[in-house]
């Protein structure tokens, strides 16, 4: 009965499984009618802008297939931009344009591939018809500012887009990690595709040990630099963004994805009503105890400041 012993030890550690996350936290505390606030990135962006929360600037929106032909016109003033489906999931359908070729008018993508304008239009049409949206419903395509990554991560990320994921429960940041792309993940920040996940000490903003695949690692497999004890810049600002996201969406349990821009600082990339559970592996700790601690005192935590203070005090990393 090894499986039962393992399950019991995981439960003692407070490790949260999918069933438990759905039944105990997500279903009761996330109201269905607020889901569009995170599932529709256009709506998220508008809400964030109204609340004065920093997000990548919106260049344009394409709502019907016929408008796709105008995309060249919309992006003309910008050297680089990102095209993404408003209701996409898991990073599907996102095109990152970093520049243009001098001749021929091709777009140069982050991956190095060249894309002609007609290919870009076709991709946009597909996006609008719902190829990348949850459930295949018609969608809209957003064109927005391309984040210039803060050089702090250059030493510990292989190409691609490192981002910081914070789980927020009733406005209290409960757990955080930074996701670092590797050669194996082909520049993507998804852990199951081979990115590294490094836990972050909420109190100090320093990275803890990291997890790559199912192994604990201390250095980046491609750059060989240590991923431990790295200071995350703007950490207080990041906690502030995370804590404020509760007022933005009114979802009790959510994940917030933040990127660090070289010029504009932390920007909210997206919010997620069903954040994954891998963050527990990266932090080598379970979520359950922390969530219960918030639940016990949530009525007292009525301001952003109190919530952050609670979080830094209670969820500081303890050496074991």
């Amino acid at each position, binding site marked *: 009965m090894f*499986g039962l012993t*393992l*399950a019991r*030890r*995981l*439960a003692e*550690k407070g*490790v949260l*499984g*999918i*069933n*438990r996350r759905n*039944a*105990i936290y997500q*279903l*009761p505390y996330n109201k269905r009618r607020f889901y569009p606030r995170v599932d529709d990135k256009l709506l998220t962006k508008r809400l964030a802008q109204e609340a004065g929360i920093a997000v990548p600037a919106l260049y344009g929106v394409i709502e019907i*297939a016929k408008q796709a032909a105008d995309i060249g016109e919309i992006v003309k003033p910008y050297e680089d931009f990102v095209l993404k489906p408003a209701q996409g*999931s*898991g990073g*599907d*359908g996102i095109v990152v344009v970093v520049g243009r070729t001098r001749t021929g008018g091709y777009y140069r993508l982050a991956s190095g591939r060249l894309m002609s304008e007609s290919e870009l239009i*076709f991709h946009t*049409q*597909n996006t609008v*018809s*719902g*190829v*990348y949206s949850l459930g*295949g419903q018609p969608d809209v395509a957003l064109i927005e500012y391309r984040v210039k990554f803060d050089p702090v991560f250059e030493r510990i990320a292989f190409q691609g887009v490192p981002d910081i994921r914070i789980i927020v429960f009733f406005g209290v940041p409960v757990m955080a990690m930074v996701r670092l792309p590797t050669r194996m993940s082909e520049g993507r920040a998804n852990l199951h595709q081979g990115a590294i996940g490094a836990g972050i000490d909420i109190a100090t903003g320093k990275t803890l*040990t990291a*997890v790559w695949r*199912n*192994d*604990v690692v201390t250095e980046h497999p491609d750059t060989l630099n240590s991923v431990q004890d790295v200071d995350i810049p703007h950490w207080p600002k990041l906690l502030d963004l995370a804590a404020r996201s509760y007022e933005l969406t009114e979802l009790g349990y959510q994940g917030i994805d933040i990127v660090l821009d070289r010029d504009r600082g932390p920007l909210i990339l997206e919010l997620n009503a069903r954040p994954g*559970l891998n963050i*527990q*592996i990266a932090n*080598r*700790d*379970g979520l359950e105890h922390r969530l219960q601690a918030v639940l016990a005192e949530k009525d007292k935590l009525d301001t952003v400041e109190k919530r952050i203070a609670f979080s830094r005090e209670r969820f500081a990393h303890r050496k074991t």
Partner: protein
Amino acid sequence: MSKKPVYILASVLTLIGIALYVYKVAFLGYPVVPQAKIDVWEIEARLKFTAVGGEVKLGLFTPPGSGRNAILERRYVAPGYGLTTENDGPNQRAVISTRKANGAQTVYYRISVQRTPGAPPAQPNLSTAIEPPGLEEAKLAAAQVIVRDAEARSADRATMVPLIIERFTKQPRGNQVAVLLGADPKPRDLAVAIVKTLAVANIPAHIVNGVILDNARRRAPVTYWIEAHVGDKWVAFDLKTASAGVSDNHLTWWRGSKQLTTLSGGTDLSVNIATNRLEESALANLLTMARSRRDELISFSLYSLPIQTQHVYRLLVVVPIGIFLLVLLRNVIGVTTLGTFMPVLIALSFRETQLLWGLILFVVVVGSGLLVRAYFETLKLLLVPRLASVLICVVLIMAILSIISHKLGFDRGLSVALFPMVIMTMTIERLSIVWDERGAAFAMKQAVGSLAVAVLCYLVMNLDVVSHQLFTFPELLLIILAATILLGRYTGYRLVELPRFKVLVQGRS
């Protein structure tokens, strides 16, 4: 969030389910397991017609029963009608009549038949007088040629009859037979022509009309064979094999060339005969007794439905088992599948084709569908027209598969046409979308996972015990519902999460 209401609801449902089950088993004597089968069949004739507003008289021949096929019970469902029986020559006829009827009318006649294979066939009490064949000149001449020919090649009547039948059934048909049968003969015309030819040869003979009890059928056709008087007794001759004796499974309904029904005072009469094999004798006897006692509680069972509806419910009652299994696999084991209930639907379609063929057909059709789709991708078609084009190709692929397998002599391939179209369509559509969004490897993983779950569901849903239990005791569905509701509040780990999170409780490495 309290789990209490969930537990209460689940216990109440379980208690009701168990109480009904125990009551039916202990007090009403329902059999718990399918028992050794003795052959009991339920045969139902449904007669529909439109009454014109006045007196209606509907006559229906009824099976006489014999040592081979003993009639256990006869039942008429004809509200507002009176019933008399009469003899018409060798046959029995039930006459259902009413003074006044208007509009659409439906009358059921049901019998249960117990088959005893190997018992001697019944001897009809029939005169051996020969009815004049009444053939016109050209046909008479043709019949005489056939008879002379058979006479020359046979020793007596017993050997002559098969020779004559053979002339009619052998392909290609000779000239004389063609003259006698005319263009496009129906099976009944064949029997009529043979009887007339035998009359020319001075051999007393008549048509026997019946049904074959081989499979449960929603629309059983009337089958014809003949009986000829040879060697001082009546001998049945099978028209397919042109030899003496018919197989045990032929149920004699009526003899002679008259129609099954007569109707006055109505129009548009249609007759449908359905056959169903009852699972076991104990149950059949129980139900027969319950009907005669008019026991309401027993008659409140799926067995009381018309046979056609019973067939549908035999399928429907096992669906919840498959769905429960799916919930278990998804929420407790953590298998990823294509769409929520798709595997159960695939499993249902396997029931039409059998497992191995079902798997092969599924993989071939879905695989070719995906290849076609991959090509359409390069044409840069927009989403909806692309899905529609794939669908059209799937229909073509299925048609081609059926033709090829028929030509190769695999009749199983034909059942692909019955393979529910909607299920194929939805599978390809979902698989394509997953392929689009997550890549080929993920799509394959989901497809294989779904197929594995479908096979498992099929195996469980196809167990005789499962289908018997659920059809005989539909209250078991309440227990399945209770278990499913409980699973809805299962908040433990999924099995696949254990290795995933194992690193969290292991010492630092």
